[in-house]
C-alpha cells in the first residue's frame, strides 16, 4: 500500500510528467489558455492514458516479449494507441454524447500527446506489473492534469495583466513553466 502511495506521489509531484519528464508539452502549451479546456483535456488524458497503459501492458507482455520482438514496441504501441483513441472517440460520440461534448473534442489531440506513448514505454522500462502500470499511468495523468490546470489558471490571470508584448504568449508561458519546474524540484528525493 505504501509502495502504491509512493508511486502515486512520485508520478504526480516528484517526477511530474510535464515539469521533469518533458512529456506532453504540446497540449500543455496549446490547451492551457482556458481553465475549462484544461480541465476537459486533463480528464480525457486521464481516461485514455489509463486505458492505454493497461492495453500496452497486455501487448508487451503477452505478444511482444513471448515472440521476442521488443524492438517493435514503438510501432505496435503507437498503432494501438492511435486506434484506441479513434475508437474511443467514435464510440463515445454515439453512446455518450454528453461525455463526448466534455471530453471527446480533446481526443484527437491525445494521439499526438507524447505523454501517452512516453508513459507506456516508461512503464515497460520500469518493469511495472499490471496493477502498477495502471496506477502509474493514472497518477501520471493526474500529474499532467495538475500541471495543466495550474498553468491554465496562471495564464487566465496573466491575460489580465500587462505582460510586455515581446514576452506575451509562448515566451512567458515557457518562463512560467520554468519557474514551476523549479518549484517542483523541491519534491526531489521524496521518492527513491
Amino acid at each position, binding site marked *: 500500500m505504501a509502495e502504491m502511495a509512493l508511486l502515486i506521489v512520485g508520478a504526480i509531484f516528484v517526477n511530474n510528467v510535464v515539469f521533469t519528464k*518533458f512529456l506532453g*508539452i*504540446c497540449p500543455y502549451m496549446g490547451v492551457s489558455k482556458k481553465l475549462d479546456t484544461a480541465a476537459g483535456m486533463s480528464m480525457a488524458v486521464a481516461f485514455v492514458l489509463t486505458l492505454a497503459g493497461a492495453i500496452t501492458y497486455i501487448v508487451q507482455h503477452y505478444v511482444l516479449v513471448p515472440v521476442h520482438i521488443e524492438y517493435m514496441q514503438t510501432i505496435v504501441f503507437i498503432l494501438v494507441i492511435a486506434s484506441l483513441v479513434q475508437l474511443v472517440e467514435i464510440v463515445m460520440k454515439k453512446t455518450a454524447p454528453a461525455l463526448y461534448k466534455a471530453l471527446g473534442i480533446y481526443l484527437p489531440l491525445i494521439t499526438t500527446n*507524447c505523454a501517452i*506513448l512516453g508513459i507506456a514505454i516508461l512503464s515497460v522500462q520500469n518493469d511495472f506489473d499490471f496493477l502498477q502500470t495502471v496506477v502509474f499511468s493514472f497518477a501520471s495523468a493526474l500529474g499532467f492534469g495538475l500541471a495543466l490546470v495550474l498553468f491554465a489558471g496562471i495564464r487566465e490571470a496573466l491575460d489580465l495583466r500587462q505582460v510586455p508584448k515581446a514576452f506575451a504568449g509562448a515566451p512567458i508561458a515557457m518562463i512560467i513553466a520554468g519557474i514551476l519546474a523549479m518549484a517542483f524540484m523541491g519534491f526531489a528525493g521524496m521518492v527513491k
Partner: protein
Amino acid sequence: MNYADKFKKTFFTENPVTGLLLGLCPTLAVTSSAENGLGMGLATTFVLLMSNLVISLLRNIIPNRVRIPAYIVIIATFVTVVDLGLKATLYDLHKTLGLFIPLIVVNCIILGRAEAFASKNTVWHSIVDGIANGLGFTFALFILGAIREILGSGAILGFRFWPEEYRTILLFVLAPGAFITLGFMLVGMNKISKMLEGK
C-alpha cells in the same frame, strides 16, 4: 519553389520550434548540450525526410479512413530504424537521447508535415520540405542546446569557455533551465524573424 526563401522561412519565421511551437517535448528534453540537440535534430530530420518521401509516394494509395494510422505506422517504422541504427553505431548518444527516440513518433512536426505537405505534394517537393523542416528543427535544438550548455556547464562541444573550477549556472542544464532558456530564445527568434521580414 524558391529554395533560399524556403530555408530562410523554416529556419526563422516559420521555424517548427520557435515559430510554430511544434515538437516541444524533445526540444526541451534533450537540449542539455549542443551535441544532444544536434543528434536529436538529425535523427528527426532523417525520420521526417523518409516519412515525407514514403507518404508522398503512397499519397494516392492510402484510403482516407485509415490515413492517420497508416502515416503513424510509416513514421514509427522509420523511428525504430533510427533507434536501432543509433544503438548500433552511436551507442553513447543513444543512451542520452534515450526515451526520446521512440517519441519522435509523436513529434507533431512529423505528422503535421505528413498531413499538411507530403500527402498533397510530389515526392521531390516533399523531400525538400522534409529536409528544410528537419534542419530548421535541428537548428533550433542546436542553438538551444548550445546556450544551455555554455551557461550550465561552461563548455560547448568539448570546448571550455572557462576553467572547470569556475562555477556555472547549473540550473540551465536542468529541467527549469530548458523552459526558461526556450522562453528567452523565442523572444530572440521573434526579433530576428521580424528583422528578416522587415528587410
